[in-house]
C-alpha cells in the first residue's frame, strides 16, 4: 500500500526524495520504495524519517481502519 502521508509530508517541506534520503542516511531509491509501499522500513528508520519531517509515527505510518 502506498505511503502518501510520507510523500505529502515531504512535499510540504519542499524536500526532494534525494534530500530526505540524505538526511536519514539511505539511498533515494529506498525513500521511493517506502513511498510506493514496496519496502517496509525498520522502526529506527521510521523514527529518523519522522524526526526529519517533524511528524510523529502516527502521522506518517498509522493507517486508519476503513
Amino acid at each position, binding site marked *: 500500500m502506498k505511503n502518501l502521508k510520507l510523500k505529502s509530508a515531504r512535499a510540504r517541506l519542499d524536500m526532494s526524495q534525494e534530500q530526505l534520503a540524505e538526511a536519514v*542516511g539511505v*539511498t533515494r531509491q*529506498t525513500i521511493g520504495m517506502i513511498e510506493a509501499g514496496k*519496502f517496509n522500513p525498520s522502526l*529506527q528508520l521510521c523514527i529518523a524519517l519522522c524526526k526529519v519531517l517533524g511528524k510523529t509515527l502516527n502521522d506518517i505510518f498509522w493507517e486508519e481502519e476503513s
Partner: protein
Amino acid sequence: MKDERIEQAKNKIRSEIAVIIYVGIAISFAVKTLLFKMNLRECMTEYLILIFFPVYEVIRMNMMKVSIYSVYPKYRHKQLKTFIVFVILFFVVAAVSVFSSTKGSTVNLSQGSIVFLFIFIVLFIGVFFMATKYHQSRAYKYEKEFDDDNGPEE
C-alpha cells in the same frame, strides 16, 4: 546509518549463496563417494564443511539468542516430520550406494568408500540430532526469558 534495504538485500543474497554452496558441497561429496568411490581422506574438505556448517549455525544462533525451533507442539510435529524425512533419505542413498557397489560381487562389502559413507551418515545424523535437541532446549529458554507473565529467569 547504512541503507537497511541494501543491507537486507545483501544479506539475503549472501545467505542464498551460502546455501547454494552448501548444497553443491553435499552433491560433490555424494558424487565423490558414490560415483568415484573415493574414501573419506580424499573428500575431507567437503566432509568438514558439511559437519561444521550446522555446528557454526548453532553457535551463532546461541550468540544471537535466536531459535528456529518452535516451543509450540503444533510446529514441533512438523519439525519432527522433516527430521524423519532427512533420515529416510540418507538411508535410501546409503542403500543405493551399497547395492550399486556390491552388484555382482560378494567381497566388495568391505570397501572403504561404503564404510566411510556410513561413518559420515552416522556422524551427520548424530550432529543433526544433537543440534536439533540443543535448539529446542534453547527455544524454551528464550521463550521464558522475555516472557512478562513468568518474570525474569535466573
